[in-house]
């Protein structure tokens, strides 16, 4: 085996094993025949193999049409929103547990802090397995539970004043609502077999451990920083998978809508608005760049 062949074989490891078993020999022959430099692969060829391999791993290559890419992005958005929502709400059960251990029985009204994450978990599992009806029902119940926890069960008071918007001013209100809208659209989407359904609950659990305020991470509260980091990563990976920046844009809608509601509510109620215009501009710029990257990469990947 020559040095060039050994290097090409190493680069071909970017492709999934099953794909390599089918294609590697054939690709290797073409690579060796087209090589300009007999010692090492060109940068262009190496980049093409890495991007091609990663795209084969994500499965975006197999989506085929623009609508299939759109539905896949919608499914990923719904699942990501549910994971994000769970990270925002997972501090609740931990808080209840810590308080119960230190101060005895907890305030019964605080059971919302357990009900809401439980409903989000059901929605996440159901969506991961492709049961969109159950996932949609659980997401809608989450929205209702969030509103009830903020406003109580007196339905007449729910939409009577601007103060009812108080729960919508928090970013943790929006993931369940946005996910339910995405799931509503998915109810009418053509059914496709769901690959690796366990991946999303596992990802959710990891995200909760890493991001949810808890004694493990010192009760850190930096969800927006995490979203911006994800958005930056999504823009970089757009040439590999156009769905990533689309998902990032949808996730960023949660804090954006919360800030918009806060501004609207504060203006109507006559409250002083203590929000930095720079923060709004940064959020808008990040959203615009992710959306642009998603649109450009999506058009390119959907074209044959």
């Amino acid at each position, binding site marked *: 085996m020559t040095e060039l062949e050994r290097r090409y074989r190493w680069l071909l490891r970017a492709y999934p094993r099953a794909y390599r078993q089918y294609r590697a*020999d054939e690709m290797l022959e073409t690579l060796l025949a087209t090589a300009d430099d007999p010692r090492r692969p060109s940068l262009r060829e190496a980049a*093409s193999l890495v991007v*091609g391999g990663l795209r084969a791993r994500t499965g975006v290559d197999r989506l085929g049409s623009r609508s299939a890419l759109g539905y896949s992005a919608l499914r990923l958005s719904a699942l990501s929103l549910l994971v994000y929502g769970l990270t925002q709400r997972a501090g609740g059960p931990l808080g209840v547990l810590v308080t119960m251990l230190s101060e005895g029985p907890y305030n019964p009204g605080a059971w919302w802090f357990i009900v809401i994450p439980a409903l989000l978990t059901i929605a996440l599992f159901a969506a991961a397995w492709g049961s969109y009806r159950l996932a949609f029902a659980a997401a809608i119940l989450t929205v209702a539970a969030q509103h009830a926890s903020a406003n109580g069960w007196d339905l007449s008071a729910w939409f009577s004043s601007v103060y009812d918007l108080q729960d919508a001013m928090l970013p943790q209100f929006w993931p369940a609502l946005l996910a339910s809208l995405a799931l509503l659209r998915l109810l009418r989407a053509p059914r496709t077999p769901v690959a690796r359904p366990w991946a999303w609950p596992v990802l959710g659990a990891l995200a909760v451990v890493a991001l949810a305020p808890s004694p493990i991470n010192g009760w850190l509260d930096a969800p927006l920083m995490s979203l911006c980091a994800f958005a930056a990563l999504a823009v970089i990976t757009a040439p590999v998978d156009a769905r990533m920046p689309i998902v990032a844009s949808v996730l960023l809608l949660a804090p954006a809508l919360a800030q918009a509601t806060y501004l609207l509510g504060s203006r109507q109620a006559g409250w002083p608005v203590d929000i930095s215009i720079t923060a709004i501009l940064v959020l808008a710029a990040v959203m615009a760049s992710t959306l642009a990257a998603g649109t450009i990469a999506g058009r390119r990947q959907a074209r*044959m």
Partner: protein
Amino acid sequence: MREPTYFILAALQDEPLHGYAIVKRAQELSDGRVRLTTGTLYAALDRLTGEEMVRVAEEAVVNGRARRTYELTQRGMSALTAEAERMAAAASVVRNRSVRPMAAGRVVPA
């Protein structure tokens, strides 16, 4: 249809070819403009095979390695012809433009 896809289909219109031959033929047909990388070529072949525009004509073992030869299907030929006609129609808008005399400039009185 993207240019690399167009020239991959065009390369296969005369005879079935294997990967390296497709790269070379596409480069010849495009006057050296389309230089397919192996990653791009096989991603396109996977997609075109999935769309039933291209199929494997022959599988052989050469120098101990599998070598597949690809050929155009009827569907692939139709898509290629349709794309060529679309581009020809677009080109005719410029090529067949009747030469109109430039409007005489108005003489502005001094």
